[in-house]
């Protein structure tokens, strides 16, 4: 299992049947492949609908129906379309149970940076600031480091997407909760030791007394 699949499989365990969830572009979109049977998610697409279905086969591609990454999708029975104000009312108004998205940096206070690298990469925040600011739970799903360089920091150095909003961080090495006392390691991938996980993390990890294996 590669790192991305480990992360997606673990994030898929976060949800209960009927949860309304927005998944960011990339790794988070793999999550629905791994939710257990009996758990049906209501997936939101911030460009204006609830009820994202699977990608269509070539014969059924409809360019009026794309996800927030511009990729053709389908909708499930019971889906609903709306405009961008309603869509972000859902997001900002706290009507989503969770959002799952990647990060360039996240820190021990739950700050998140994922929308720009000054002077290098300025794609814009799109809906990310609203999603992180508005969803009931913000789950960061990302590889633990960027080619060995820590992404889980004491303090984010890049411009923030939102301050103090991250609830949980899931990486291929473990699962960490953001608490008022800092980051709490609650699960670990048994392929790594706790010492190795700490060594790959700039922020200090407190090990939960109930620490358990990810799988």
């Amino acid at each position, binding site marked *: 299992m590669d790192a991305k699949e480990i992360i997606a499989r673990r994030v898929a365990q976060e949800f209960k049947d009927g949860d309304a969830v927005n998944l960011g572009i990339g790794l988070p979109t793999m999550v629905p492949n791994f939710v257990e049977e009996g758990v049906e998610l209501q997936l939101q697409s911030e*460009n204006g609908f609830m009820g994202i279905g699977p990608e269509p086969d070539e014969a059924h591609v409809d360019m009026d129906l*794309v996800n927030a990454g511009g990729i053709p999708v389908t909708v499930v029975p019971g889906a609903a379309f*709306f405009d961008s104000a309603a869509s*972000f009312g859902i997001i*900002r108004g706290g009507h989503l149970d969770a959002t799952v998205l990647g990060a360039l940096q996240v820190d021990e206070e739950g700050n998140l940076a994922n929308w720009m690298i000054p002077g290098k990469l300025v794609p814009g925040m799109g809906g990310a600031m609203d999603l992180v600011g508005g969803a009931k739970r913000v789950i960061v799903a990302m590889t633990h480091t960027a080619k060995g360089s820590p992404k889980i920091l004491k303090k984010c150095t890049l411009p923030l*997407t939102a301050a103090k909003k991250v609830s949980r961080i899931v990486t291929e090495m473990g699962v960490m909760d953001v608490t008022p006392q800092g980051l709490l390691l609650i699960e670990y991938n048994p392929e790594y030791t706790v010492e190795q996980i700490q060594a790959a993390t700039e922020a200090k990890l407190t090990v939960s007394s109930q620490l358990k294996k990810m799988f």
Partner: protein
Amino acid sequence: MDKQISIEEAVAQVKDGMTVMIGGFLACGSPHRIIDALVQKGVKDLTIIANDTGFIDKGIGKLVVNGQVKKVVATHIGTNKETGRLMNEGKMEVVLVPQGTLAEQIRAAGAGLGGVLTPIGIGTPVAEGKDQLVIDGKTYLLEKPVKADIALIAGTKVDVKGNVFYREATQNFNPLMATAADLVIVEAGEVVEAGGIDPHLVMTPGLFVDYIVKA
């Protein structure tokens, strides 16, 4: 009253230096025929307000690539490298706005409101230079209304009175922009007689629409 005009009459309304809202989300639900005609006409120094700048060869991006845009107000520019290049070279001003904020700023302008108070952007570069208000203990940014000289939108089915029905994910910013410009032109996938759209299904009431162009 029949609001239909020719494509030539439509682009004649757009003049150098104007502020123009263009509907669509990554070219889904954009008025493609009008954009192409604007590229051909070569109208310049435009300020474009839109969710994104599309792609270099599709949607709003064509106007950027053709050097017709002085300033962009958008939420995401990452799918059009030319926007980033022109921004970095100082040849085009880009203002990045959280997606939900842009939607509400446009809605506010159309609804006669003096602005919106949003928690999104607090603690990020978005908050710089903006007034903040504390309401019931929570801090909000004051974001001002955003309006335009012209809104160019796209509708799936439009009756001759200007009532619009949008299919699937093509609504996005279109119904909002229809309320927030001095002049509104809708590019219609299909034009039908008055009564050709069930009034229950009208998403943009015809009173907002000045002109209709067949796609």
